């Protein structure tokens, strides 16, 4: 080969894309088989799914992209944390904390200008999400308690806290339903295109994706996050920086983004907070992030994939009678397929790397280079 490094870079760029595509295809095949096993026609179900997600401008912009928005934000939150090998499974709880804080600020601050109210509520939501992530962060860095269980448990605490608040202190002033008052108009995110439900939150998600990509690839802080993620022990013994603050930063930033996701949903779509705001976006976010290989820009695409799945899932239930719970199952299949494909790719690259080393050893150029 004339330019092996070129070929290697091409392979490094292309392999994850091929891997993600393979994982999606494998998922579709398994899902089709399971649907058939469950007595549904995969063709009719998938047809309804695709039509529901992409069948018209209304479906795509007002349903799919609206569903994409919270998935993109929580997906970015998860991707950032995972990048630092912080297993934040708590985006769901952080999302609820953020939604509650945003609503509380929106209905209690005597502000009407959206120029003040929107930043204030977004900030409150980010702070609440970060606070929710701070508990597992402290337990991990101070006490050595793994964050998987703690972030999961914090999800349940957030759900019950939300239940308590909308039934009690934050209940609407009419007192009729367990939900908060509607937020003032100044706290509502504007729509992006007149006549469609898609709101500014989608754009905020894309901006955060770009910012995260630049941060991770171009800054020293981003490098540290990647270094800790690649090997916490190597990062620690290198002695160049302490890993504790890096882990804290990943936790807090991840929680803040997830917190904003919750408030953005309320501010852009529901206008009120109630129990069951999220159908589990914080968990789907894991699939979004993994399918994107934790790449922030790729997460925009994978969030649309899962947004379409969720939008199409509703249509699948309406038109083909396939229970919407299927969508959750399919999400899990995607994660498992990504994991399996990853292992396959790793075995493949291990083998080629070994072959490369052997060739270099034979030509006597291996010393010091690898």
């Amino acid at each position, binding site marked *: 080969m004339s330019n092996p490094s070129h070929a290697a870079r091409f392979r490094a760029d292309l392999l994850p894309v091929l891997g993600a595509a393979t994982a999606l295809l494998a998922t579709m095949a398994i899902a089709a088989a*399971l649907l058939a096993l*469950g*007595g549904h026609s995969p063709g009719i179900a998938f047809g309804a799914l695709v039509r529901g997600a992409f069948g018209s401008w209304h479906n795509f912009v007002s349903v799919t992209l609206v569903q994409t928005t919270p998935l993109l934000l929580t997906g970015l939150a998860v991707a950032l944390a995972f990048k630092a090998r912080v*297993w934040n*499974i708590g985006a769901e709880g952080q999302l609820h904390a953020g939604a509650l804080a945003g609503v509380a600020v929106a209905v209690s601050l005597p502000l009407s200008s959206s120029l003040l109210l929107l930043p204030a509520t977004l900030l409150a939501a980010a702070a609440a999400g970060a606070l929710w992530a701070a*508990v597992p962060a402290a*337990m991990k860095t101070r*006490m050595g*308690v*793994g964050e*998987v*269980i*703690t972030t*999961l*448990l*914090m999800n*349940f*605490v957030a759900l*019950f*806290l939300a*239940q*308590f608040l909308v*039934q*009690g202190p934050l209940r609407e002033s009419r007192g009729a339903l367990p939900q908060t008052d509607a937020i003032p108009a100044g706290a509502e995110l504007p729509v992006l295109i007149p006549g469609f439900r898609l709101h500014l939150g989608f754009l905020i998600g894309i901006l955060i994706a770009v910012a995260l990509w630049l941060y991770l690839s171009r800054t020293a802080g981003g490098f540290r996050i990647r270094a800790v993620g690649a090997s916490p022990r190597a990062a620690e013994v290198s002695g160049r920086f302490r890993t504790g603050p890096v882990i804290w930063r990943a936790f807090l930033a991840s929680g803040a983004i997830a917190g904003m996701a919750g408030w953005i949903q309320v501010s852009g779509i529901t206008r009120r907070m109630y129990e069951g705001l999220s159908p*589990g976006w914080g*968990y*789907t976010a*894991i*699939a979004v992030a*993994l399918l994107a290989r934790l790449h922030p820009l790729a997460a925009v695409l994978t969030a649309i994939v899962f947004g379409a799945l969720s939008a199409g899932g509703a249509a699948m239930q309406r038109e083909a009678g*396939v*229970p919407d*719970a*299927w*969508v*959750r*199952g*399919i*999400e*899990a*299949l995607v*994660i*498992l397929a990504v*994991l*399996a494909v*990853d*292992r396959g790719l*790793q075995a493949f690259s*291990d083998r080629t790397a070994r072959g490369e080393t052997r060739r270099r050893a034979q030509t006597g150029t291996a010393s010091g280079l690898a």
Partner: protein
Amino acid sequence: MSDLAVLSSFLVSAVGLAVPLALAALGETVSQRAGVINIGLEGSVIWGALGGALGSLAGGGYAGLLAGALTGAAAAFIFAAFAVRLNTDQIITGTAVTIGSLGFTGAVYQSRFGATGVALELETLPVWEVPLLSRIPVIGPALFDQELTAYLVYVMVPLLAWFLFRTRWGLALRAAGESPEAAHAAGVPVVRTRMLAAVFAGAMAGLAGAHLSLAHTGTFTENMSAGKGFIAIAVVVLGRWRPAGILAAALFFGGAEALQFTLQAVDADLPYPLFLALPYVLSLAALAGWFGRSRAPEGLALPWPRRGH
């Protein structure tokens, strides 16, 4: 009600609520001792609940228990096939199995019983009253007037303690969890040991799920596991990876959960969502080491064989 009667009924529900936690946590102890942390335990619990419901419809309560154990084990087998056999990340895999299990159990339930039909009514497990012992004041009914699953816990605690700490197999299993290299060098089949331990944990979690649908409620609802599998993992830590400790920790959590019922009976105005949150908050406190600390198996959640070698 007299104070003593309140206490007695509190203990009855505390033990009843502790049973599924103890079952799942005892299984997870074996799995973690072998080096496998199975976040998919929650998935095994919900499959056990559904399997229990379907089994009970087909052949009565005890068939339900068996079906629950089998479905729970099947979910754990999928987890283990990925996390142990394929050596994928245990935490991500477990999370995926949980998400998928909540989805697919919902899908099966909806296609079998309709999305919004009336609540499923199941034959509940019979209660076994132990003669004499159940007459002991206050604690007798709580401990000796329970379903079969409770007695299973009583039997499993000493049995697993003996197995883990007094048998060669137990030693091999713990070696696979503490130092897979050393275990491998000593001829222990690490992968097979870890697979078996994980599947056993799934069967126990499945029994826990079947207990939820057959003993507690006599029905199945979507997502009825409600984080029990996650709490069970906290119970393992609190119980310090020892069967007797698990029993004590499970009773503690069962008590925390039972508190809401008892307090609501006393004062209906108490904000019940806060009491619902109590077991989760206590789990966090337990993990933070408020009740003393212990050491997890050295090789827990680490891949075997080591990657990149």
